[in-house]
């Protein structure tokens, strides 16, 4: 039963969400010491003001009390207010999440569109020069630090092109692409960061599809298909590819958490106003409530990603039954 299966998975997820948020809070609580978030912006505060601020933010309470009231809030859809700027945590997330999704979705899309044919070609021409060349490129793709690649692209496509008076691509400044700037401007800002991110995906997935395809092509049912007199093209694409793509679903599902962690470096390099950068900046300032909010959503994404992947798996592979 599918509904029961989902219910069971979600039940198990509750434990994970509680675990993750608790660990995050504990770590922040340990690291913060006597520091009060936001204090840097107000050097003139008197000790009694600080005490009042602490009480306002709930920092005078032990962490478990704070945690329980936070949980209580979350259950009521209230993620609290940022400890730095006072606006609601939800408004920050609503502000930043679409940007991150725009970037990652583009990268994943490009990744799949490029990786699938590259992987299939590698498997079909196994051992050929093409295969070796593709292998070298993808293995190299693993080895380049993302931020370094980002910097190099900026150096070439923004700085150098601009210096020579050629058309250039913006290196940063994609602020709030959903309000300011037209579609073209948004795309221009997207090109470089999406390239860096998708390069990594292509490297990983093309290798994966290649080996998965090789595995599938050695299966008995491929021999059956050939014995039926099918063309090699039909054998590969109709009978092989569908089976080879199934495991990729899991891999992509696991990529969803990359929305926050994986994309962070790219967001920082290109000044992309995404959710990863938000979390990074706020964690450095001990903005408890914002970090907790982002953590919560990030964990939900991980869980949703895994669940979605498993469900899709079931759609593509009729052998999987949920029970």
């Amino acid at each position: 039963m599918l509904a029961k299966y989902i219910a069971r998975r979600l039940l198990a997820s509750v434990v994970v969400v509680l675990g993750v948020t608790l660990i995050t809070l504990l770590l922040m609580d340990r690291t913060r010491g006597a520091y009060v978030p936001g204090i840097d912006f107000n050097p003139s505060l008197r000790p009694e003001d600080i005490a009042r601020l602490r009480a306002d933010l709930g920092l005078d309470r032990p962490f478990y009390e704070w945690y329980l009231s936070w949980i209580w809030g979350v259950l009521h859809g209230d993620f609290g207010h940022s400890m730095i700027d006072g606006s609601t945590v939800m408004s920050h997330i609503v502000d930043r999440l679409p940007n991150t999704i725009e970037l990652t979705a583009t990268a994943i899309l490009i990744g799949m569109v490029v990786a699938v044919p590259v992987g299939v070609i590698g498997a079909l021409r196994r051992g050929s020069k093409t295969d070796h060349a593709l292998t070298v490129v993808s293995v190299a793709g693993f080895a380049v630090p993302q931020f370094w690649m980002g910097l190099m692209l900026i150096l070439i496509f923004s700085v150098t092109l601009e210096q020579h008076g050629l058309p250039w691509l913006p290196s940063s400044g994609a602020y709030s692409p959903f309000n300011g700037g037209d579609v073209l401007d948004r795309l221009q800002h997207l090109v470089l960061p999406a390239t860096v991110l998708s390069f990594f995906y292509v490297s990983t997935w093309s290798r994966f599809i290649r080996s998965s395809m090789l595995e599938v092509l050695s299966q008995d049912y491929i021999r059956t298909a050939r014995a039926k007199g099918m063309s090699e093209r039909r054998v590969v694409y109709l009978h092989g590819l569908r089976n080879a793509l199934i495991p990729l679903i899991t891999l992509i599902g696991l990529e969803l958490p990359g929305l926050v962690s994986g994309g962070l470096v790219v967001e920082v390099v290109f000044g992309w106003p995404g959710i990863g950068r938000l979390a990074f900046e706020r964690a450095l300032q001990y903005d408890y409530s914002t970090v907790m909010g982002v953590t919560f959503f990030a964990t939900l994404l991980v869980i949703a990603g895994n669940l979605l992947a498993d469900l899709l798996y079931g759609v593509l592979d009729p052998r999987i039954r949920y029970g």
Partner: protein
Amino acid sequence: MIGPSRVAELDMPAAGIETGTARPAQSYWNESWERLRANRIGIAAGILILIFAVIAVMAPLFSLILTHYQPQTINLDQTFMKPGSTHLLGSDELGRDTLTRLIWGARVSLGVAFLTVAMSLTLGTTVGMVAGYYGGWIDDVLMRLVDTVLAIPAIFLFILMSILFRPNAFTLAAIVASVGWGSVARLVRGEVLSVKQRDFILATRSIGARDTRLMLRHLLPNVLPVLIVAASLGVGQIILIEAALDFLGLGIQPPTPSWGNMLTNAQSYFFRSGFLVALPGIAIFVTVLASNMFGNAIRDAFDPRLKS
């Protein structure tokens, strides 16, 4: 790590037994080794890693006899030098010798990577093996823990922990390993579950062997190839993670040189000296590439069925 000593042990003919004359005993390890040796690129990658490791270990010696500089010696008369006889690979904005800093940086970057891999592997293997072997509620509890660890956006953990611990090489390794063990545990558990299905485990139980014997004498050697591959690929990944953390200002703090913070630092001098950006980048790229290629080569050697 664990690999070589096991291989040696298995290779030795048992005392008191005449060796066969037909052909020499070919152990699984021997055959894998033969296949690995035939892979020239893989071997070259392995040797490169080894050379880097030796350089890292001998860094003090190198800076004494080769470069004649210490990594933190500042000389404001010799800033942004091009590579030449004074500074073999040039110098940075404070006149520090780039080659010396790269050599000492290798110490940090490779040290962190090896340490992290060792820690993740130890913890991950233990947890994965116990979970996979015993199953039931032990498996449930341990795997829920692994799920939690893997669901934490790793970057938060790194941020918070680096603030908490003010990382040096050792703590940084511990921080990265605190997340890394999770995927190792999953890997090992999956492997254990599949090895456990095989009849020889049942056969060993049928002669009355204890759990520890089953795990150490039968499961571990059969999981080992996967671990060796994971270790080799892991070194590359962790060098990248460490560099990214340095870039975010969360890793090894200057003035201690690491490839990551050298690269980050050099960004500001992008246009004054391309070498400063290129050299640590190349060091990272080459090391990670070598580690990945070596890992792939080992995988091919251990599992010829998956050979690429």
